[in-house]
């Protein structure tokens, strides 16, 4: 046990010493890792920002079911309960005739004519169930529930409707967000793979430069772990430092962009949200970056040392 601890300590110590003695190599490797980890981080934040934009669009869209005046409040409650059970439904709001009228008046308070007209007729606004979908793709499912024969009977003709029946627009948005989401996920994955390969290559080069050391240690009778250990420690240090640097770079990028006020949005990319997201998830992102850096770093060094550790075969 004690001997194992000594060995472990020697491996870590040697790794740190080697890191400091190979500064040039370390700087080169870390530079590459910083760039790649920054790309991963950037694509993560971008993806989260797109997700947020999509969520915001989704939030603004609702389906309205207008109820016949003959529909009782009890019947309405049953329908509301049925809708609330659906996982595709994010939120349901029931407005009886009075509440619906108030909402209508509040919405149109600038148009006194409409309000007066509505008042003369006696409340013409039907009771309304407002359904907010959790996902735009689920709108059809919600519509299917509302259009079953018994539910159709409860509603006025022409119900249900998307807010003001902008079906085409909503379908377009749904399609666009779906594409955007897929692009986001694919981008993150592709970048992660490319980055892993680049980091692996860099560490492989660094170890290639020192393959003679490995061969010599082998000839002196050093065990695999004892030779490989310090390289793994060294690569882990690369990973750790690179992760911290990449976070610092993104952080200063946000600081710079928040100083330049007009850069609050770059087309689809909502910089303000991205910055908030970064702040809110700072420690998660830092931990994630460190984990990625260390895992790719150590895995690369384990793989890269393998070939120089092999014994001669016949």
């Amino acid at each position: 046990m004690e001997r194992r601890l000594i060995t472990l300590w020697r491996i870590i110590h040697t790794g740190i010493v080697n890191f400091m003695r190979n500064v040039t190599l370390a700087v080169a490797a870390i530079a590459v890792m910083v760039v790649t980890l920054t790309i991963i981080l950037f694509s993560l934040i971008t993806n989260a920002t797109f997700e947020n934009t999509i969520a915001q669009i989704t939030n603004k869209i609702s389906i309205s079911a207008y109820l016949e005046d003959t529909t009782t409040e009890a019947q309405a409650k049953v329908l509301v309960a049925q809708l609330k059970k659906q996982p595709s439904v994010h939120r349901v709001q029931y407005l009886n005739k009075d509440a619906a009228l108030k909402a209508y008046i509040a919405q149109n308070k600038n148009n006194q004519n409409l309000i007066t007209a509505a008042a003369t007729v006696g409340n013409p606004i039907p009771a309304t169930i407002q359904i907010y979908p959790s996902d735009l793709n689920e709108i059809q499912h919600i519509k299917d529930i509302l259009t079953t024969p018994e539910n159709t009977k409860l509603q006025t003709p022409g119900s249900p409707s998307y807010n003001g029946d902008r079906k085409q627009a909503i379908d377009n948005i749904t399609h666009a967000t779906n594409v955007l989401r897929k692009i986001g996920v694919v981008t993150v994955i592709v970048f992660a793979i490319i980055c892993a390969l680049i980091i692996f290559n860099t560490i492989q080069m660094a170890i290639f430069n020192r393959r003679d050391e490995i061969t010599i240690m082998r000839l002196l009778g050093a065990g695999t772990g004892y030779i490989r250990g310090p390289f793994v420690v060294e690569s882990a240090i690369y990973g750790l430092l690179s992760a911290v640097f990449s976070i610092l770079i993104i952080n200063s990028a946000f600081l710079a962009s928040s100083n330049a006020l007009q850069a609050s949005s770059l087309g689809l990319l909502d910089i303000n949200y991205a910055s908030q997201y970064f702040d809110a998830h700072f420690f998660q992102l830092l931990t994630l970056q460190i984990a990625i850096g260390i895992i790719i770093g150590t895995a690369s060094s384990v793989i890269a040392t393998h070939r120089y550790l092999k014994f001669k075969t016949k």
Partner: protein
Amino acid sequence: MILLDRVTKKYVRSEGTALDRISLHVEPKEFVIVIGQSGAGKTTLLRLLTREERPTSGKIIIGSIDYDKLKDKDIPLLRRKIGVVFQDFKLLPNKTVYENVAFALEIVGVSNREIRHTVPKVLNIVNLKGKEDRMPRQLSGGERQRVAIARAIVRQPRILIADEPTGNLDPKHAWDVIKVLEKINRYGTTVLLTTHNRDIVDKLKRRVVVIQGGKVTSDRASAGYKH
């Protein structure tokens, strides 16, 4: 005991046969000098013993270890029993003189206290006191060679292989090194020494094995050999 039985070695990337059916028997605690022209196969012979190379055919046995039955995972254990002074030194370029010698002890799990005690003593024996913190690139050829010797003897191995350990040394230092080898041999280590230095061969009065073109052409005690 070292035993080679009709050992042949052909390198993949070379035409001829580096070693051609060599048979050799070395008793424990023996001191054997191997001589032969450049390219005769001396280093190849030593590489087979450390398992740096595998023989094309033939049998090698050291002590109770039959090389045919040696598993890869046991090769480090074998190498820890053998001290080697490599012809090209093979010092670790990123480690200081002290660390190079200490490394040989670290890998066999020697305690820090013992390392601190032993390494300076051995560096003293090879006259490298005061150069502990130098990197190998900051040393002269002869100094590097002496670091290699210190590293090989620091573990007090059962078998010491010294491939041209005096190649870069002036007669005085060369003779110092030979005296160290003799001393180690007196304490019970089997020594295999290759050299081009006739003077050493003549003065040492030990068993001399001559290799020519990969074959043993002579194996006898030099005049006045005592064992």
